[in-house]
């Protein structure tokens, strides 16, 4: 090709501030047709804000927005973005929980009117789901609120790629795989590669650097509201990418298996059985252990955690819990944050009972705890009294970590808690979990990332709601997890 590819989007010198926080400090970003651009950076680096500007959901304070060679500037909003074929899958899922999958597809497409719109919407979304995620089990008639977060994410993604009367030029995927297991994430990335080859552009935001390196043709690194690097993906390695983001990379793999006690010991903190388990395999956690819950997303891991959580406060025939318990939600909008409250109030809520003096909550103690965890988790905010929604998604998650880790709980349940958390923070949190486990805290950790299982002392693999395999870390391999996730374990 002699002609350079057509430029779909050109953002020039975009700036945006939220009060005192400067989220974007003059960012330039251009995307050509048929290009897959990876966008990486820490939590709060400005990635999501920039994508909100591009999607038309946030108006920038200054800067130019040129779409298909036309300067749209001030008149730019969601409607205009759609007309020019720009779609966005946001990190915070935007489906209506009370509507069905098909009805949610209709919201996206005004042209689906008249008799039989429901049937046509259902056909549209089902075809796209089949195309992207072959073998999925989502029905167009399912109510979105009843779907697990992983399936909601699949619907949200599929919906963004459906086409009726408006063109499809550029799709923004903000953390699309954060709730997907390895298999569905692979399906999505394969679909993205096919789509890009066909001339559509994609911007992929992800903290899973392997995905970005594998799927993107060019990678842009953001830091503190600005672009610090932008080069072809082939020029980056995982380490140089992490370095460009500004994280100090240490040789930081999980500790060698030798340092572990081969024998499981210590007092039993949690003992639970799955109600429908055909054999007598039980789920056991000893004091100071990190227990991994693995398998494909939505195969009973969250249910197990909730059953254990409930057993701490009321009698349960199938689960016994020996100590105070706390849970870190992964689905933070539904299970985690209190949107009307400040960051400080969100962090302290779990620990208020021990701050009560003469029936009143000791405000000084609550403030001290908020300040302490502001520092410990490095929550990116000038003031813990600001509303929790002023934080980026990853920083909201840090606040939830602070809530549980700062509490008196000796058992901490984690429901795939690393959704939207950047690499640097993840490494800090891994380190912290190991320290706390060393000090006697017990962690039950459901994760959709196989890499994270390497931090666990013992792993239980779930499939169709039952435990199909369990093994100590020494025997952990990705192949074994995958094999157990798909077939009855030997």
């Amino acid at each position, binding site marked *: 090709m002699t002609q350079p590819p057509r430029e779909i989007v050109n953002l020039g010198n975009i700036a945006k501030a939220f009060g005192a926080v400067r989220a974007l400090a003059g960012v330039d970003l251009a995307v050509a047709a048929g290009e897959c651009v990876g966008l990486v950076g820490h939590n709060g680096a400005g990635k999501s804000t920039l994508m909100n500007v591009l999607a038309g959901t946030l108006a920038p304070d200054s800067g130019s927005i040129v779409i298909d060679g036309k300067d749209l500037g001030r008149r730019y909003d969601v409607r205009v973005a759609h007309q020019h074929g720009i779609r966005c899958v946001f990190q915070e899922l935007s489906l209506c929980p009370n509507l069905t999958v098909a009805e949610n597809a209709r919201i996206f497409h005004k042209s689906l009117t008249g008799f039989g719109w429901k049937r046509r919407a259902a056909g549209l979304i089902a075809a796209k789901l089949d195309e992207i995620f072959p073998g999925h089990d989502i029905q167009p008639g399912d109510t979105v609120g009843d779907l697990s977060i992983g399936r909601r994410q699949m619907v949200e993604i599929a919906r963004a790629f459906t086409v009726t009367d408006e063109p499809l030029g550029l799709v923004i995927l903000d953390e699309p795989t954060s709730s997907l297991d390895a298999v569905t994430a692979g399906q999505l990335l394969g679909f993205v590669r096919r789509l890009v080859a066909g001339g559509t552009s994609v911007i992929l935001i992800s903290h899973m650097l392997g995905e970005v390196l594998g799927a993107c043709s060019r990678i842009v690194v953001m830091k503190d509201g600005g672009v610090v690097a932008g080069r072809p993906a082939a020029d980056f390695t995982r380490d140089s990418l992490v370095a460009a983001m500004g994280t100090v990379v240490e040789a930081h793999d999980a500790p060698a298996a030798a340092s572990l006690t081969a024998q499981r010991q210590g007092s039993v903190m949690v003992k639970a059985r799955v109600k429908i388990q055909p054999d007598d395999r039980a789920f056991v956690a000893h004091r100071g252990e990190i227990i991994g819950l693995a398998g494909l997303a939505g195969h009973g891991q969250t249910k197990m955690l909730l059953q254990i959580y409930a057993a701490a406060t009321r009698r349960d025939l199938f689960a016994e819990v020996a100590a105070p318990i706390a849970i870190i939600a992964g689905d933070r909008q539904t299970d985690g944050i*209190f949107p009307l409250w400040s960051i400080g109030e969100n962090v302290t809520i*779990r620990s208020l009972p021990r701050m009560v003096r003469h029936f009143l909550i000791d405000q000084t103690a609550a403030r001290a705890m908020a300040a302490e965890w502001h520092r410990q988790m490095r929550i990116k905010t000038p003031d813990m009294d600001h509303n929790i929604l002023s934080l980026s998604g990853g920083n909201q998650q840090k606040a939830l970590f602070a809530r549980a880790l700062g509490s008196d709980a000796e058992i901490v349940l984690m429901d795939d808690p690393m959704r939207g958390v950047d690499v640097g923070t993840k490494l800090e949190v891994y380190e912290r979990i190991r320290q706390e486990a060393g000090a006697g805290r017990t962690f039950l950790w459901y994760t959709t990332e196989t890499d994270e299982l390497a931090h666990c002392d013992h792993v239980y693999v779930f499939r169709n709601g039952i435990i199909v395999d369990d093994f100590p870390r020494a025997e952990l391999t990705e192949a074994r997890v995958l094999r157990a996730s798909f077939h009855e374990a030997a």
Partner: protein
Amino acid sequence: MNVVAFLGGRAWIWSFIATALVWLATVAFTGGTGGGQILTAALSFAIFTVIVGIGQMFVITTGPGNVDLSIPATMALSGAVTTKLMDTQNEMIALGVVVALGIGIGVGLGNYLLIRLLRIPPIIATLSASFLVQSTAIAYGRGLRIKPPPLLADFTTAQVAGVPVLAACGIVFTVVMGVVLARTLYGRSVLAVGQNMRAAWLAGINVERTRLFTYVLSAMLAGLAGLLLSGFSGGSSLNMGEEYLLASIAVVVIGGTSVAGGRANVPGIWGAALFLYLLVTMLNTFGASAGLRLILTGLIIIAVITLAGGGEQQKR
């Protein structure tokens, strides 16, 4: 920007501004006479709306769908039982108060059990409970109007320098309830449950106990209000709680409490209760007919809610 932020954080100011405007309009119409008396009367009547309004506020704050429609019936039952029990004797007042609160506890427990065990939506549960309670009041009181003990009547109607004693006590009570909401574990639990019941459970809050306390609190306040109102109005009547059904909800909403739950506003209850009373007084003073009065009341309430509460709720 700063003014907006200031007012946004203090939604109750609107109800007080509206109250002041209505009062000024009334006094301007009368040429400056009777301004003080109108305020005294407003305080005397508003206190009952405030007492039940605070209970309703806690209920509504525990989240969408939560509302207590049994307040009028509880007031009627409490008034009927306690006036008969006290039988105009001063020394029985203490027992009367205990019984009034006890009736509240009973009704509150009943409401909660209907909601929890039979999984009936609160609006239906409290409405059906109110039929049972109201029928009990009818059967028990047989429509007899017994005078309250003189001491109770004196206390509920006493004034010091134009300020009703009951209203002054009510202000202290309001401050206490404000502290309960903001600074106690129970108050925080109510606010958390109202924002997200599931998240509250996962944050270690005892959601069901919080809801139980809240329905019991609302019914206890209704019981107390029934006793005080029968003292104030010279005896109980079976329909004396009627107007408090809508009034208790209206003052919560006008006062700036979020109907979606999780955000309560204690001072706003006072502003709204005074506003509602003064609004009717103003229209009476203007000589508006009953029909016109109702139409204007409705329109003005809509206007105040749009101005004070609407903008804030859209931001969510």
